[in-house]
């Protein structure tokens, strides 16, 4: 039975028919798993998985000042994006703390900005408040769009027969507006799993037939549980874990999304330049447990008697079969430290990120 007050994506009936376990996520009743997190995780790594991520927010920036508005709001230089290109970026406060991490798509004549579901209202308010002097319309189209993520080494092969778009010509972080299963769709070679794959933006009304076509073609339905373990293995940030208002994108290790030299000033630029010069207050590290136990969000990181940081994400990696995690720690911390699990300090060591990198052909 539907839980009171929770919103549903256009694929809710599909999830119920597939026997998904549904949970409250950012105000939506969303599938956390279908067959099991580990099986879904492995399906994405070895074959292809299909996620409903329609809860994500879509903001459209239109008007003569759309580009200026985004240059002010995001850390990436969107002037360097071609039409048909997307870029991962942070949105910061003046003090450098993070409002959200987003993907900016430069379309012919406007920009699509995809935001985290849990930040949608906050982001839209931040976007509008800080662009009042500009000639730009910021439209919240989140309720009009569904979003499917088809991810895994077999994703392209599954999608190919359902579209006329030449997928082999679609490079990472490029997108086209075409059709999937005869309905209009924006097809983007992006994802949040560390695998090759596509994110398919389409209208909510069309989403169920495309979902069913992809499942029939062999994609394994995968829930938010596998999405989280996949992104963690790939060393990707999750807002609310690695990123928040108290953490800058530099500290969270996503400086590749920050163009500090951007000519048009962006909100937070001064604070980030200062931090870049003076040194980070904390830094994100990947770690592996050496003792028995699984680190979880909020566990303390210690070095002897001293608390030197906090775990932001942790799980048992289905691919590596080891307990892994991310932590924000003091910049000077040694490569070996302890994670305090239920009052018990358990040895861990820092390891390079990402934990998992796919073989590229």
């Amino acid at each position, binding site marked *: 039975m539907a839980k009171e007050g929770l919103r549903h994506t256009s694929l809710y009936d599909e999830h119920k028919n597939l026997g998904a*376990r549904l949970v409250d996520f950012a105000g939506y009743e969303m599938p*956390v*798993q279908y067959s*099991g*997190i*580990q099986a879904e995780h492995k399906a994405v790594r070895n074959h292809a998985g299909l996620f409903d991520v329609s809860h994500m927010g879509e903001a459209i920036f239109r008007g003569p000042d759309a580009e200026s508005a985004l240059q002010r709001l995001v850390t990436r230089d969107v002037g360097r994006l071609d039409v048909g290109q997307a870029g991962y970026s942070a949105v910061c406060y003046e003090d450098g703390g993070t409002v959200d991490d987003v993907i900016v798509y430069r379309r012919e004549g406007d920009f699509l900005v995809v935001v985290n579901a849990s930040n949608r209202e906050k982001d839209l308010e931040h976007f509008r408040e800080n662009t009042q002097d500009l000639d730009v319309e910021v439209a919240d189209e989140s309720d009009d769009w569904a979003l499917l993520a088809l991810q895994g080494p077999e994703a392209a092969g599954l999608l190919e027969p359902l579209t006329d778009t030449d997928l082999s010509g679609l490079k990472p972080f490029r997108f086209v507006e075409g059709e999937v299963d005869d309905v209009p769709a924006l097809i983007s070679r992006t994802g949040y799993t560390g695998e090759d794959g596509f994110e398919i933006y389409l209208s909510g009304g069309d989403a169920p037939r495309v979902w069913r076509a992809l499942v029939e073609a062999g994609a394994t339905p995968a829930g938010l*549980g596998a999405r*989280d*373990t996949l992104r963690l293995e790939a060393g990707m940030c999750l807002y609310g874990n690695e990123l928040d208002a108290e953490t800058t994108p530099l500290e969270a290790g996503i400086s590749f999304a920050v163009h500090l030299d951007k000519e048009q000033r962006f909100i937070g630029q001064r604070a980030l330049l200062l931090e870049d010069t003076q040194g980070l207050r904390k830094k994100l590290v990947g770690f592996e447990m050496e003792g*028995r*136990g*699984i680190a*979880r969000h909020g566990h303390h990181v210690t070095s002897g008697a001293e608390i030197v940081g906090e775990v932001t994400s942790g*799980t*048992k990696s*289905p691919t590596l079969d080891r*307990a892994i995690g991310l932590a924000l720690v003091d910049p000077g911390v040694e490569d070996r430290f302890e994670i305090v699990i*239920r009052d018990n300090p358990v040895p861990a060591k820092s390891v390079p990120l990402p934990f998992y990198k796919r073989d590229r052909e």
Partner: protein
Amino acid sequence: MSVPEDLQYTKSHEWVRTEGDTATIGITDHAQDELGDVVFVELPDEGATFDAGESFGTVESVKAVSDLYAPVGGEVVEANSSLEDAPEKINEDPYGEGWIVKLRTSDEPDLLSPEEYEKVVEGES
């Protein structure tokens, strides 16, 4: 969902098989299904003692950590150490190979019958 007739249960989803003064304890089929893939079990040391209702260990799935509560008070006579390498036994065979701990108890246990436990589960969904 399986709720064997020959066991007793708790509201926190443990099962108990009592043989003489030994109580074998595990988590129910419903509990393992709710948790999902079990990937880690923290077991108590042999000889440790617990009061009824006290936490004696944890079971972790990919996403969640769940405390284990002693349905009866007693001393640990054996912990199922095979779960350390094969925690998935809790998913595969929760009432058999997935047993967690054996306690020596002198408590007069106050536990739920299979019928009472089924009502607890129905009340949650």
